[in-house]
């Protein structure tokens, strides 16, 4: 249970799911980098792959894991809205074209989406991306019809004759774009820095066990440093583990804005954009009922940023961005 | 109205010989009664005549043509363990044969045809004492009632050959006499050929125009399955149908 994890302890469980920005975790575990860092701090870290992304977050929220990877929006709406005080320990990357809106028919524009049914994972970052996209062309969500479609089936669903438009992320997006009639009309590179991929840790656990955070951060930056160097072994491993080949993996990586060094990451979280983004995200979430049936205002969940700034109810801070450990890493103090 | 010829017929189950070298000639319209020890192969012989078992060797001819390899409306049967249709009421069970032969496609009769059939069925029901139970399902009948219904069911279509496997086993003497009469009347009216297995010697003598006794000619005490039964006695009986009806 969440409180049990508040005590100091020696072994930790981390959940991750397959996504280009999170593949380094798999390599860190496989290559021994993670164990090296854990040993350094005298702890054990067990990394578990969960194939169903939502399920991994649910498991984390329910207390089965001490940490889990997820996006900023899902962090707000699942663990934080669920009362599990969570901290974004590492901001690993943001989507810079990894998520996109596709309309069937070459040469179509985003405005052409009006009146069409749109297949996407409802209430996910795809939904958010679409909403942000619609704003840019002066449309409202009620101008289209959202059809909830599971991410695993979305490629197959796109092939169906009655599918007109879809929103999804890579690698599914790449598969869809490979079909001759697919037109990418909007993507996350138009809203850079709004869909952020995080390593989230239970705040209580973090507080009681700084060693855990240090080991994770240390392992992460060592691993992505290899990637930055285009280490063939590391990249080949990640490509294979995500079920594709090197070319496919590099294609995904190209539209992912990785923060290759602790310093890049640090400047992003401490900068102002995170706050504007989170404000947009929480409004979107509230409008769609994602903060819970009981949520009366957009402010129910408090969000804290580095430097003590907050959004929403400051008495109910459940979502935190913490730069302490990244800062340590950037200073080489780990 | 059919003659039956059996030529050098053998029937084996696995390595058990049940029937051994059977030779017979039964003329049109005979009433053959069959007796023999339990388990000697009488039912098996009827099943061969019915076409649901194949002889291991030898021939079985009806009107000098090979027997059709499947049951048909020319040969009626009453099983030792009476088998009725559990989903039909007494009347429906009885009507079934008329409906099958009267309506090749729907298997149901309507209007005047149905009324005629119903009259025939009701008359028969009355004569076997089941009129009062006509709307019951088989599971609600007593054993003897089921047996009577089963007999009525097979005679209503007036088959050319009627095969009866201990049809009167579960009947009391009064009803048994009634059933005798019904069978004999149908037999003399339609001149069908009847094969009846019975354990009651008196009944066999009284009803039949011919009595067959099934028995083993040889016995191997070490291996009781080695030899099969055959017809050891084949007695023509002299009584006329009309006489027997009166008896």
């Amino acid at each position: 249970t969440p409180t049990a994890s508040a005590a100091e302890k020696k072994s930790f469980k981390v959940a991750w799911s397959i996504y280009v920005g999170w593949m380094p975790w798999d390599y860190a575990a496989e290559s021994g980098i993670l164990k090296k860092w854990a040993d350094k701090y005298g702890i054990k870290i067990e990394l578990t792959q969960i194939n169903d992304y939502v399920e991994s977050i649910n498991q984390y929220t329910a207390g089965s894991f001490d940490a889990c990877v997820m996006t900023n929006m899902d962090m707000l709406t699942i663990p934080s809205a669920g009362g599990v005080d969570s901290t974004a320990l590492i901001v690993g990357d943001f989507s810079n074209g990894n998520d996109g809106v596709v309309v069937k028919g070459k040469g179509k524009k985003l405005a052409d989406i009006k009146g069409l049914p749109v297949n996407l994972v409802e209430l996910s970052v795809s939904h958010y991306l679409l909403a942000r996209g619609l704003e840019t062309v002066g449309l409202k969500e009620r101008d289209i019809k959202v059809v909830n479609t599971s991410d695993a089936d979305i490629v197959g669903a796109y092939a169906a004759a009655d599918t007109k438009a879809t929103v999804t992320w890579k690698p599914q997006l790449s598969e869809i774009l490979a079909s001759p009639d697919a037109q990418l009309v909007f993507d996350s590179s138009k809203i850079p820095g709004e869909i952020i991929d995080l390593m989230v840790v239970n705040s209580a656990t973090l507080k009681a066990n700084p060693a855990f955070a240090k080991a994770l951060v240390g392992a992460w930056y060592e691993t992505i440093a290899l990637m930055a160097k285009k280490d063939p072994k590391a990249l080949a491993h990640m490509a294979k583990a995500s079920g594709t080949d090197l070319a496919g993996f590099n294609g995904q990586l190209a539209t992912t804005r990785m923060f290759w060094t602790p310093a890049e990451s640090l400047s992003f979280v401490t900068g102002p954009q995170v706050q504007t983004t989170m404000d947009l995200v929480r409004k979107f979430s509230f409008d769609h009922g994602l903060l819970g049936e009981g949520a009366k205002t957009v402010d129910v969940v408090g969000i804290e940023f580095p430097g003590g700034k907050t959004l929403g109810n400051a008495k109910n801070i459940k979502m935190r961005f913490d730069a302490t450990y990244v800062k340590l890493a950037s200073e080489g103090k780990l | 109205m059919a003659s039956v010829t059996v030529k050098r017929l053998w029937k084996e189950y696995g390595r058990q010989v049940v029937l051994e070298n059977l030779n017979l000639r039964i003329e049109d319209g005979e009433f053959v009664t069959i007796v023999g020890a339990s388990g000697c192969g009488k039912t098996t012989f009827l099943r061969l005549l019915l076409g649901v078992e194949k002889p291991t060797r030898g021939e079985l001819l009806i009107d000098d043509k090979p027997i059709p390899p499947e049951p048909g409306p020319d040969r009626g049967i009453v099983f030792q363990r009476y088998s009725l249709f559990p989903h039909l009421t007494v009347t429906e069970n009885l009507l079934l044969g008329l409906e099958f032969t009267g309506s090749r496609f729907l298997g149901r009769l309507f209007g005047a045809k149905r009324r005629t059939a119903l009259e025939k069925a009701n008359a028969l029901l009355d004569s076997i004492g089941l009129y009062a139970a006509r709307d019951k399902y088989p599971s609600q009948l007593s054993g003897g009632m089921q047996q009577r219904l089963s007999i009525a069911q097979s005679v209503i279509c007036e088959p050319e050959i009627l095969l009866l496997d201990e049809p009167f086993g579960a009947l009391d003497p009064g009803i048994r006499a009634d059933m005798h009469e019904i069978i004999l009347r149908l037999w003399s009216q339609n001149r069908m050929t009847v094969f009846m297995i019975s354990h009651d010697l008196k009944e066999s003598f009284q009803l039949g125009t011919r009595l067959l006794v099934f028995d083993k000619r040889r016995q191997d005490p070490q291996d009781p399955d080695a030899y099969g039964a055959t017809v050891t006695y084949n007695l023509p009986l002299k009584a006329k149908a009309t006489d027997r009806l009166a008896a």
Partner: protein
Amino acid sequence: MPRLINLHPPRGSAAFLAVLPFLVLIAAYLFGSNTRLEANPDDKLLPSVATLVDTVHAYAFEEDRRSGEVLLWVDTWASLKRIVVALGISAAIGLGLGLTIGAIPYIRALAAPFVAAVSMIPPLAILPVLFIVLGLGEVAKIALIVIGVTPVIARDVALRAGELPTEQLIKAQTLGASSWLLSTRIILPQLWPRLIDAVRLQLGCAWLFLIAAEAIASTEGLGYRIFLVRRYLAMDVILPYVFWITLLAFLMDWMLRIARRRLFPWAESQR
């Protein structure tokens, strides 16, 4: 003291016994929920009764803010339509196939292995092919249930058709029945109650496929809602929905049982 096997609980205590395991389940839930909520008052996994009541009220009696519809009824209606149609189709095809497979050796040789093989295909794994052929609309959803459920019903029915005593079939032939009449007048009527049993056993599976189908591409339905709110672990919605689905399925089961007893009294008294 009679044998356990001959002891029949009187009506009143039978009802009590039937309710008992459900009470235990509820008690276990309340305990679990309490324990978790004490640790974290915002815990979503096992919501409190109060939360459940609020949510149920919101879903069952209040209009949704966004769509202006009362969600539970919209979902129920959409799902019920799909499952009833799908089960009807499955039962019809299953009966037809099962009957002919069970009755006619040539059809059995032709179709039995194929039906057995098809019943083993996990339909969810070949969804993309299904989409291409049937699109993403209602047809596809119903088809998924039908594909998942029909082969099993057909095999069950065929198994049962094969169990009819041969004496009956022989007797019917001596009464002049053709293969057609034998099938329609002797075998088919006796398969009806067994078909009902087969459908009853597949109800759970059918709902499973419905939920899976609604998770694929849809805008309403009980399964849709469950998958939607699973995104934010809204167990206060999921649990009542699961309960509601179970209740609906249970009622369907119960109605089928009653129908079986009413329509085929002979099948009851056969025991």
